[in-house]
């Protein structure tokens, strides 16, 4: 019977109920999108790192997992590593941030082909000149580019799109390494070195050898490196997510506080009726809290649905810039966050309803 009363109350003002649910859904969607983007982009980075086909990655000292600061590794080290025992191939690569989260990679295409098996071209083919650029399918889709087009918004110079390749290897943009080195004042330097061992059993030996050869450098097996690409290992990201969670609770709290406060005011007389029937304070409070919980659950479901809509929009509008994962593991967390918010928000209106004087409530017009 309580459930029927709660649902009847929510149905009585459908617009208010739906609007409240929608507003509760906003922080849920924000949280899910933020977490989904974080996890999606990290997973995408890991997938593309694995796509290179290397066994070991050597990064400069004091670099974070996600970003590289400049290109401080002398290129001659690549040739030295290449000569080490059990090393099948060493490849230097240069990365340069070209805005937001996109970077362009400078590569030596023959070495890259040898290590990764090469790009699979959907249009065009490999570099033919120093101003050529290979873009992946997502970048091409987002910027509406085709093989043969000219790109001018990368490093403020024209690039000739020589090929559109399948995604999943390196960054989304690849140019000849000497060109990128010269353009960015990093001639003779690389950002990181990828190493392929003769056979998988040699990886630990090569790793130990590299650590001895390059003390202070960040050297990981590719497996280790990709496993480090998590939200916890990215400085500040976890804090940012916690802040968003806090904002989610506050918005849920504020929305339900206002909505239920209005509802309690509008239902003053009905609260008086329930009290005249012998309803206890707890019964009245329970009704208000139950309404808030239903709105919280509804808002969570709507929020989860909106996160799918956001993902579809991102996939359509920014396929190369942003990758949003769907994170079902966060659905119950988002649900609890919104429930905490709505219960806190419903508490004051609920208590004021529960404490209303029945005679005054019955006389309310």
């Amino acid at each position, binding site marked *: *019977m309580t459930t029927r*009363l709660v649902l009847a*109350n929510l*149905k009585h003002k459908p617009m208010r109920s739906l609007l409240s649910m929608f507003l509760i859904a906003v922080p849920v969607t924000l949280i899910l999108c933020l977490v989904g983007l974080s996890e999606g982009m990290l997973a995408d980075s890991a997938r593309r790192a694995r796509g290179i086909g290397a066994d070991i990655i050597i990064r400069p000292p004091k670099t974070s997992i996600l970003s590289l600061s400049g290109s401080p590794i002398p290129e001659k080290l690549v040739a030295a590593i290449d000569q080490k025992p059990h090393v099948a191939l060493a490849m230097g690569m240069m990365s340069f941030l070209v805005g937001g989260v996109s970077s362009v990679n400078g590569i030596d295409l023959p070495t890259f082909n040898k290590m990764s098996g090469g790009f699979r071209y959907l249009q065009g083919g490999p570099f033919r000149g120093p101003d050529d650029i290979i873009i992946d399918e997502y970048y091409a889709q987002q910027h509406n580019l085709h093989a043969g087009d000219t790109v001018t918004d990368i490093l403020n110079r024209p690039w000739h799109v020589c090929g559109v390749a399948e995604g999943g290897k390196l960054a989304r943009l690849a140019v000849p390494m000497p060109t990128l080195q010269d353009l960015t004042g990093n001639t003779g330097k690389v950002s990181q070195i990828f190493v392929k061992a003769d056979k998988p059993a040699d990886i630990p030996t090569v790793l130990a050898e590299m650590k001895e050869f390059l003390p202070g450098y960040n050297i990981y097996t590719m497996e280790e490196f990709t496993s480090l690409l998590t939200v916890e290992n990215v400085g500040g990201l976890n804090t940012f997510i916690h802040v968003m969670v806090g904002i989610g609770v506050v918005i849920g709290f504020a929305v339900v506080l206002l909505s239920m406060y209005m509802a309690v005011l509008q239902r003053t007389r009905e609260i008086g009726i*329930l009290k005249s029937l012998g*309803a206890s304070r707890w019964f009245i409070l329970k009704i208000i809290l139950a309404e808030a919980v239903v709105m919280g659950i509804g808002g969570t479901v709507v929020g989860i649905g909106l996160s799918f809509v956001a993902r579809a929009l991102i996939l359509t509008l920014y396929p190369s810039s942003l990758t949003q994962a769907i994170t079902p593991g966060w659905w119950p967390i988002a649900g609890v966050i919104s429930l905490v918010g709505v219960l806190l928000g419903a508490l004051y209106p609920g208590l004021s309803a529960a404490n209303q*004087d029945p*005679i005054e409530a019955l006389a309310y017009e």
Partner: protein
Amino acid sequence: MSELLIEVRGLQKIYRVGKVDVPALRGVDLDVPAREFLAIIGPSGSGKSTLFHIIGGLTPATAGSVRIAGQDISSLSDAGRTELRKQKVGFVFQKFNLLPNLTAGDNIAIARHIAGRDQKPEPEFEEVLKLLGIAARLNHKPAALSGGEQQRVAIARAIVNHPAILLADEPTGNLDSENSCAVLDVLRDLNRRLGQTILMITHNPEAATFAHRTVYMRDGRIVA
């Protein structure tokens, strides 16, 4: 004469309005035997509703005592008065006071639920619904019912838990004469057939004739 169901002695109620004390009841004595249909008449401000509110456990008295079936309710806490309303008193109001979001049937069911009696009403209650003439209207919401039907639903809700006392505050105040007559007939029938004790406030002397006895209130006292 039946045993006394309600004994009111020296009942006083003073409301505080700002910094001014406003006496609503100035020493009311009243005995109501079980199964009586009592009408209380008086002008506005005479204290009728306040007397109802105290007997019904909606507000505490300032002084004096009220005993219902031997239980002194003047010393009850808020929770105790809530229990009294749940178990011993049924209210019928001038403005019907049905919950607008629920059907007529659910308005009755919620009273059962609050009293902790979630099972269906006894089979005899079906007879009461027929007597009230609302058996076919239970799936309608109050907005779809006439004033007379709404008041009869309110009466059904008030008696569904078999209260010791039915308190009817101007039950015909919002009804035309035909519906007024029907509601008063119903109240009289409930009293006669079920032995329901009824206290009814009314301004209308004609309505009071349906009761066994009428008392008159003025200025917070029973004057006749």
